[in-house]
């Protein structure tokens, strides 16, 4: 095991001022002990309940003042600002964290259970989603993690769950009577993505019928908005609530298994069933293996992780332990091409800075093609080289490297920095190219854009 691999492949990149030395597996163990689910940068971030309320207020203002956008301009800006400041906070945490391995896993799960700020309802909630649904559960059990995800307002809004109404529920019947021409009813989006992306995986053994059944079970999972009083909604505005009057009555059959529970318990039971299924173990094992051992990870590693998932009953710490112990993750070659996010974070850590307030995070990330929490689909950002190693992307990284070097080169000597960051991954060719650069700035930029630094 070597320090360079530990910190670059498992952590978020080396900070030359960091005195956190790597000796052995204890480096990982210590991080699980000192990990804070709510680091300083997000201590005062607004929670999802406040954000939903703000959102509903803006909608209300918009509805009442269609011709006078001035009235809701300020309120709408508050929502945009929340997204921007959470993006900044995320970068700040990543650059300064003393638990980089856990932080990497937060990003991993956030992307596995992706929401996208492309959807206007989700934009302001995206940061709160990671902070509330992912961070507190990253060292817990997979079942707790997914429960947090599926009941979070951001996910419910992103995958259209809040509109899903059981056709035979009280609410469904009433609506059908009042609006006979209007199509209302089930929305399968969340149910499908839970099976396809979050748990079982695309060939995980479920059918369309199973998706529809699950969607029926999930009816009633929604956000309290204060407007469904006629349905008896008693939840506090902005919170997750189970709305019995929207729930499709009856028992469900999923993959041949019968679920007789009623109400919210039914959806929860199916979720638990899916989360514990061997197909899920395989799906998660494959994604984790790909993240740490290369785009085409060895089958031996996938098997180990799958076994660990099953035997620990989804205990994430046990699975991580299997992961870091596996020699397949410690091969000397750099096996992964960094995503833009990983590359930016590691570049800034390499500058040895302790805060990121001078960086316009959203602009920089947009330029690099990976705005936080804004993947193009519920699948999240791709985790393979072909998605990131492209001509224009490389050019943008070069330009960004040049800018980073301009901003932060002050106390650094690239000749000394290069071996610190890359250890024996530093090739003679790169070393010479850096030493021949015509200025410190140019030397730093070359280091950040070098083949070794683009990979981990």
């Amino acid at each position, binding site marked *: 095991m070597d320090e360079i691999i530990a910190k670059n492949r498992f952590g978020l990149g080396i900070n030359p001022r960091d005195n956190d030395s790597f000796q052995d597996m204890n480096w990982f163990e210590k991080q699980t002990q000192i990990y804070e689910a709510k680091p300083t940068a997000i201590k005062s971030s607004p929670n999802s309940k406040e954000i939903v309320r703000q959102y509903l207020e803006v909608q209300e203002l918009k509805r009442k003042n269609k011709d006078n956008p001035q009235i809701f301009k300020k309120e709408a800006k508050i929502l945009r600002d929340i997204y921007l400041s959470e993006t900044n906070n995320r970068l700040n945490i990543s650059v300064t964290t003393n638990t980089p391995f856990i932080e990497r896993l937060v990003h991993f799960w956030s992307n596995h259970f992706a929401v996208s700020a492309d959807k206007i309802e989700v934009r302001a909630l995206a940061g709160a989603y990671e902070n509330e649904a992912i961070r507190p559960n990253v060292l817990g059990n997979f079942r707790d993690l997914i429960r947090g995800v599926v009941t979070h307002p951001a996910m419910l809004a992103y995958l259209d769950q809040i509109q899903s109404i059981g056709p035979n529920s009280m609410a469904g019947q009433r609506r059908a009577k009042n609006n006979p021409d209007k199509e209302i009813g089930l929305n399968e989006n969340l149910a499908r993505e839970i099976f396809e992306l979050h748990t079982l995986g695309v060939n995980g053994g479920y059918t369309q019928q199973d998706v529809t059944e699950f969607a029926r079970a999930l009816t009633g999972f929604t956000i309290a908005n204060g407007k469904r009083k006629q349905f008896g909604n008693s939840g506090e505005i902005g919170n997750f609530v189970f709305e019995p009057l929207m729930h499709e009555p009856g028992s469900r059959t999923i993959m041949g298994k019968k679920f007789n529970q009623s109400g919210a318990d039914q959806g929860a039971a199916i979720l638990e069933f899916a989360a514990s299924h061997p197909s899920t173990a395989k799906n998660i094992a494959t994604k984790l293996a790909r993240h740490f051992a290369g785009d085409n990870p060895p089958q031996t590693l996938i098997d180990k992780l799958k076994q660990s998932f099953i035997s620990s009953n989804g205990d994430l710490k046990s699975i991580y332990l299997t992961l870091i112990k596996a020699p397949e993750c410690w091969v000397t070659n750099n096996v992964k091409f960094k995503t833009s996010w990983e590359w930016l974070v590691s570049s800034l850590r390499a500058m040895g800075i302790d805060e990121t307030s001078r960086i316009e995070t959203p602009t920089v990330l947009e330029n690099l093609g990976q705005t936080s929490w804004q993947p193009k689909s519920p699948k999240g950002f791709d985790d393979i080289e072909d998605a990131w190693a492209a001509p224009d992307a490389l050019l943008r990284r070069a330009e960004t490297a040049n800018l980073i070097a301009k901003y932060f080169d002050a106390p650094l000597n690239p000749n000394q920095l290069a071996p610190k960051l890359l250890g024996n991954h530093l090739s003679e060719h790169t070393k010479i190219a850096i030493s021949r650069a015509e200025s410190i700035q*140019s030397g730093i930029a070359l280091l950040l854009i070098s083949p070794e630094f683009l990979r981990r």
Partner: protein
Amino acid sequence: MQRRKFLQIGAGTLGLSLLAPSFSFANEANDTRFIFIIQRGAADGLNIVIPYADPNYRNIRKELAIENGNKLDGTFALHPALQNIYQLYLQKQASFVHATASPYRERSHFDGQNILEGGFTRAYELDNGWLNRFIGIIPKQKSEPIAFMQTIPLAMRGTNSVTSYAPSNIPDANEDLMMRISNLYENDAKLYDLWLKAEATRNMGQSISGQGAAAVGKMVGSFLAKPDGPRIAMIESQGWDTHSGQNNRLNGNLKDIDTAIGAMKTELGDAWGKTIIIIATEFGRTAHANGTGGTDHGTASCAMILGGKIEGGKVHTDWPGLAQSSLYEGRDLKPTTDLFGVISYYLGKGFNIEPQKVAQNIFAQVPNVKMFNA
């Protein structure tokens, strides 16, 4: 050529601490503008101020030799790309110091620039620079000295307050970096291929350089022309590390500098008469051309001093010659004039302070302050 007729003031080590609280030597504020332009990458002095009459010049430079320079005197000619600067020379508003270098005698860009900006004898000695220390010994000005770049360069870093400004609409000419990246990816087939494609696309949509230089010159001039504007400024120029394709690259870089100076002068208007500009590089390049149409890291180079405030029209040098036996370590132009002395001299002249006092207060080791016998 001005033969060595310098009034030498003794060399010695510094008595005052470089971090001592500053006090003003000049009695009252004058309105001099001082601009330091650093050429990063080691500019080739021998092809900028060309010793055309040196019998060995053509021999050692071969196909790199510049034949069509504008004659400055019986020994030296100015690179033909420097048209504005040549006009200044004719008007006695430009001088050149040849075979000059900082005390640095090795060949690392980083260390060389660190010493050129820091004013130290060893690289990374302190984290502050000579221009900042100079600000400490002149009366406080109406506006803070300014670096026209994103960050404060080492020369201006220190206890005295300075600022920086870099407009985002001026194209960032990082051609040098882009070229180096191609080289960096030589052994990585995938990245190399991607990079070639990226560059091809990039070149299609581009037409900068000259315009960028004029915009920089205009911007700097407009800042320093203002009655309440800054009086001390620094700019950096990149791309001087010409290991290959030197003639084209040097021509382009010099054109940019010349364009920037022309625009600066126009924009400064009357204030040009109160302006001193020093252009210097961390070290020079090998006397001999290398095998790839360029030159490698060397030692002495030339510095340019421009502005209406100087009594110019001269090439100052204690010319060591280009005979093999005269070359420093058998390969480079030998340094005969301390660049720090040159800087001290012109700063002193510009701000009415004894150059010797300037030297004592801003450089770690007091240089030979050569008072040019003008």
